[in-house]
């Protein structure tokens, strides 16, 4: 068999090979070069805008770089990180970050899923609901923060405060009280980003086949059993994906909190990102601020790794 195969193209071989194979190899090399040339600009731009700043950040984090005291600048090794581990404000901001992320993500998924289930059951007006729901997402977080601070939460004048007074709770200092301020920023983030979870989960719900729900009805499953045994497991990939994406964004949230509370009162709403910003650009201690940013990066990567592992499981 092998012999006949080898014998067959012998006549052709005189024309084709060995120069034929050389030619195709040359062609492959040339194509690879062309592909590299096409990729190069994008690759370089990406390197310049992401990889280089990241490396520079790590480089800065092992230096003392204090704009208020430039004479003391210099390489300090892991001193910034050692200081960070002793820094109670770092631990406090990390805790705020985790609370903020945990609550906002859970609320977004739960409310988003509830809304998606509700809208799936709607016979009319689904399209309108989708458009209304998407509006908060397209607003800039900074604008959202300003709107909430002025129109919604301002004592006496804000809509939320008005309803609190109406409900007999009295006027509250929504952004001045440490606990209420944290609740407020959580609510604002949830308000803005739940539509994202809603849209993703609605799309996944719509893609689930009707016939398995009919089969489940025939199999005598109640509405709750159908939700628990069929909808939830089938939506699991979408839910995990929403959790991953929203967690990463929540961990690195900035603009809304910055415009609403600036991290205050005191450090009540100071998430790690905001602490790094304050350290770097308010206290001008850029080296230590960089170390904080690297710490945030490590936390984000670790949490993402865990979530991706969860996603792969099963």
């Amino acid at each position, binding site marked *: 068999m092998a012999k006949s195969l080898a014998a067959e193209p012998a006549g052709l071989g005189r024309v084709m090979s060995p120069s034929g194979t050389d030619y195709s190899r040359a062609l492959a090399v040339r194509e690879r070069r062309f592909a590299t040339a096409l990729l190069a600009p994008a690759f370089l731009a990406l390197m310049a805008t992401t990889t280089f700043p990241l490396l520079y950040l790590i480089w800065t984090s092992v230096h003392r770089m204090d704009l208020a005291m430039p004479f003391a600048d210099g390489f300090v090794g892991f001193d910034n990180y050692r200081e960070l581990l002793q820094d109670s404000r770092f631990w406090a901001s990390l805790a705020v970050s985790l609370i903020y992320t945990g609550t906002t993500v859970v609320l977004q998924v739960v409310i988003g899923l509830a809304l998606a289930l509700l809208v799936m059951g709607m016979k009319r007006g689904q399209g309108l609901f989708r458009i209304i729901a998407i509006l908060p997402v397209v607003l800039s977080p900074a604008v959202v923060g300003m709107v909430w601070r002025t129109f919604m939460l301002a004592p006496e004048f804000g809509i939320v405060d008005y309803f609190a007074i109406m409900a007999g709770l009295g006027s509250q200092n929504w952004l001045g009280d440490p606990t209420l301020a944290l609740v407020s920023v959580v609510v604002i983030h949830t308000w803005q980003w739940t539509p994202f979870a809603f849209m993703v989960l609605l799309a996944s719900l719509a893609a689930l086949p009707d*016939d398995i729900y009919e*089969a489940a009805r025939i*199999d005598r*499953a109640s509405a709750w059993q159908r939700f628990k*045994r069929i909808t939830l497991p*089938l939506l699991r990939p979408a839910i995990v994906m929403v959790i991953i994406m929203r967690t990463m964004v929540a961990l690195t949230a900035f603009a809304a909190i910055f415009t609403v509370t600036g991290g205050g009162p005191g450090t009540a709403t100071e998430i790690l990102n905001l602490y790094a910003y304050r350290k770097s650009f308010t206290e001008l201690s850029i080296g230590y601020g960089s170390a904080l940013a690297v710490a945030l990066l490590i936390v984000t990567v670790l949490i993402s790794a865990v979530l991706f592992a969860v996603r792969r499981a099963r």
Partner: protein
Amino acid sequence: MNMRGQVHFDRIVKMHGNFSALKGIDFTIQPGEFFALLGPSGSGKSTTLRILAGLDMPTSGTVVIDGKDVTALDAKDRDVAMVFQSYALYPHMTVFENIAFPLEMAKVGKAEIEPAVREAARKVKIDHLLDRKPGQLSGGQQQRCALARAIVRKARLFLLDEPLSNLDAKLRLETRIELKKLQRSLGVTAVYVTHDQEEAMTLADRMAVFMEGQIQQIGRPSEVFAKPNSVDVAAFIGSPPMNLIEGRYADGHVEIEGHRLRTSHQIAGSRNVIVGIRPGAMRLEAGGLPATVDLVEDLGDTAVLDLTLGGATLRARVSDGPVPKEGQAVSVTARPEDIHLFDATTRKRL
């Protein structure tokens, strides 16, 4: 045999907006019967099954199962099992979990579920696949899994919505035979929707022929085949379909294209009729209708001839004797008792 599973449909109407999908369906299915709903697509047979299952509600009319009015009951409260055309397996569950699901929903104890699932899987020969997910099964195996999920519950009614239509031809034949054996051994009432008249003929004890939202005829397959009660049923049942030619009846004879054939029908007076002759009942004998052979389809043991007779085209299936050549002139006839007569205006059997 258990005596559960009697079904009665009373004047069931189903409207989709202004379109009436079912225009008043009446039938009764006896316990243990294999009942086929046969008809072309869009004739209302699947809608009928879905109303019986409780997946859709009729616009008016009553569904009675075992003497109890279940019209307003949801599917989950009707104690029926169903095999879907698409199989509708739960994609995230293993075969075992799929089959166990209806038992879990019925709060059957864990200790009973395991042997019941294995028994059902064994009956449909997928007991070696229990750990697989539906996505890892072939079409035929998925179909068996859907069957096992339906039989594991021992429901009083077993509904099948075109269960074989997604299988290849060979597997369809095999499964058809097994399905019949399975239904007999379980003794359960089965309602089977199909557009394939061969499936209905071979499987069903009785069948209802659906056309445009109405039942045209109910009866045993052999009865429906032997005595179709309208031109539409006659044209639908049988392969190749019955030859239907306009003609005229007068004292024991029909006149087709100016030629006379004797029939065993005795009707008073003379009238315009539609004459029906099954291809298999056509005989190539002298003294019949002169025709020309247009085309010969040789099927090995039989041959189907396309014949031209004046302006009409007829088909004849011949299984013995020499097969005529294309272009050859032949004489065709049929025995008097093989000639069906239908009224030319009402299209009903005479």
